[in-house]
């Protein structure tokens, strides 16, 4: 029994990274007032590009680690590009963000699938990133397995959480982002370039979503498939609501949802006679339940969330 619990908890940290990165990125978008539902599509593109580079370099065999790093870098750049593109659509042209996000999602998922079939073909695995046991700490019984023997990318992602908090709450740029998401008109009158700040937030958010996708394909699944993302982008968006637009609470949410996802792995590996599909459903049901409890009376929500800003029109 204790083994099962250790296994579940040990999966939590590495499996939560994709959700964590994507929702921290989405948090930057939403703090700046842009609701980016295209996260799923950007993650798909990031996942594809992230695995493509080590795959082309090694043909599925082992490759030097810096190829994986290159994959992550390419995914981040591509995600940033998608962020710019979404900015063009929603900030410059002021298209309604919800439906434009659906468009971006379909575009991203479709493009990743199309390119994958051309460049890779079928299911191909890549070696991925090895786990690193942190000396001494990883030998602590119970906690060592849970906290201190994961891959490098997972550690870096968790180190990024306090950095994101610092950026958002303690730097001038973070203040600008929060200002354009809360009251763009006031920010505008103080000389902040609203469009530019929103673009910047979208680029950061897109890059993080790209990294999240690359993490899924390079570090977690070690392969790409059409169903790899399977709604994680949307869950990431929901997590932002759940975490009240705050990095540390989002981290808690990501861990909670990952715990729900590991449930299916446990069901599979333990051979418990429980319908597999019900276990897969669990995180999605959890999202709806959580949203039902948290969507009403949201006082922390950025007040300009979802509203395009036009300095020519008085509201």
């Amino acid at each position: 029994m204790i083994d099962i619990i250790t296994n579940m908890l040990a999966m939590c940290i590495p499996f939560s990274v994709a959700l964590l990165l994507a929702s921290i990125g989405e948090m930057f978008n939403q703090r700046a007032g842009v609701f980016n539902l295209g996260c799923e599509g950007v993650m798909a593109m990031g996942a594809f590009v992230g695995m493509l580079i080590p795959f082309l370099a090694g043909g599925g065999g082992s490759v030097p680690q810096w190829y994986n790093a290159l994959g992550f870098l390419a995914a981040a750049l591509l995600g940033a590009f998608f962020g710019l593109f979404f900015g063009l659509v929603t900030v410059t042209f002021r298209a309604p963000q919800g439906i434009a996000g659906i468009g971006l999602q379909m575009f991203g998922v479709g493009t990743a699938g199309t390119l994958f079939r051309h460049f890779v073909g079928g299911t191909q695995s890549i070696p991925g990133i090895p786990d690193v046991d942190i000396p001494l700490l990883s030998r602590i019984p119970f906690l060592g397995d849970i906290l201190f023997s994961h891959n490098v990318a997972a550690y870096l992602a968790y180190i990024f959480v306090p950095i994101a908090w610092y950026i958002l709450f303690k730097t001038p740029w973070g203040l600008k982002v929060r200002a354009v998401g809360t009251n763009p008109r006031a920010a505008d009158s103080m000389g902040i370039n609203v469009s530019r700040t929103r673009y910047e937030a979208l680029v950061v958010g897109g890059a993080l979503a790209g990294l999240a996708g690359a993490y899924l394909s390079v570090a977690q699944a070690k392969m790409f498939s059409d169903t790899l993302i399977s709604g994680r982008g949307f869950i990431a968006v929901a997590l932002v609501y759940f975490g009240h637009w705050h990095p540390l609470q989002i981290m808690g949410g990501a861990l909670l949802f990952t715990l729900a996802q590991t449930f299916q792995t446990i069901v599979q590996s333990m051979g418990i006679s429980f319908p597999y599909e019900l276990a897969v459903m669990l995180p999605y049901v959890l999202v709806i339940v959580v949203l039902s409890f948290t969507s009403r009376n949201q006082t922390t929500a950025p007040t300009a969330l979802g509203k395009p800003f036009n300095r020519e029109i008085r509201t």
Partner: protein
Amino acid sequence: MTRGFRIAFRVVIMALAAISAILMASIILWMIGADVSDTFYTIVFEPLTKMLHISEVLIRAIPLCIIAVGISVAYRSGIINIGAEGQMAMGLLAFTGVALAFPDVPRPLLLPLALLASMIGGGIWGFIPGILKAKLNVSELLSTVMLNYIAAQFYSLCLRTIYLDPAEQVYGTGTPQSMKLTENVWLGRITGRLHYGILLALILAVLIFILMWKTSIGFRMRASGSCARAARYGGISVGFYLAVSMAISGAFAGLAGGVELAGVHRRAIEGITNNYGFSGVVVALFGGLHPFGIIPASFLFGLLIYGSTLAPTKVGVPANIVQVMQGIIIIVIVTAQMVLSNTYFQDRVWRKYQALRKKEV
């Protein structure tokens, strides 16, 4: 600003939108080294060359039309339904359930009953996000997507367990599918696989036109959608109509599932929903959220979907390209609409245009 300029402005913006959409799709095609013009020809014109192809296009247009009409009702009422995929799956389950439970009921009774069941199945699945939005302010974009995944899992669970074909158990091939449904729920076929669902789709589109533009219920729905605060001030229960419109939207998606099952597949298998739920959103937007625009739009997208199934063998382009195109089309449409409705921008262009004319004189 002259009338001629306004028309020219519209035409130019729409042309630019179309060109940028084609350009974006071409970039993706170029990246996979496909012949761009050949691919467009295969997807858009090849299906029109044979009668058989045209009937296949129409088969795909039927569920698209029904789903998109439903989505337009929700969209006009101020709620974006991207959960048609899940609602369709629930409709399929309800339809199959009725057909399997009462195989001996005569056809004039059983077919309407099964179609009604599929509407109820989809309607409940649409009502949930509607009521959550109305009462608890839950974003429908997120809840419908989650319900899609839940419905997909539930669908395969049912196919694998209670609906499983007894023959599969005997032979043990393990394909998750139901047995062939009783002939009493089959929709008749006109030619090839083309079934009478096409008439049903057209009738439903007309009915929705009447509901939305000729009755007070439709007026209240549209009022809630175009300005919720004004509607509430006018005494309209916005939340109620939000939930009702989502239930209608879901019922249509469920019905699309039932029709697809009764007309084409005639047994519940994996993959019937075939992304129709998401394509329906594109069709609804492309058709201008109006039933009479949606009918031709659903034909066009039926064409794209069928054409993309020809693409892998004819020009070596994966069928996923249709999803890419749909994504691009959504983005381009909403962007072009915003540009067209921006009167300030139009005014600026008009002044530039006049300044240019003066210089020439």
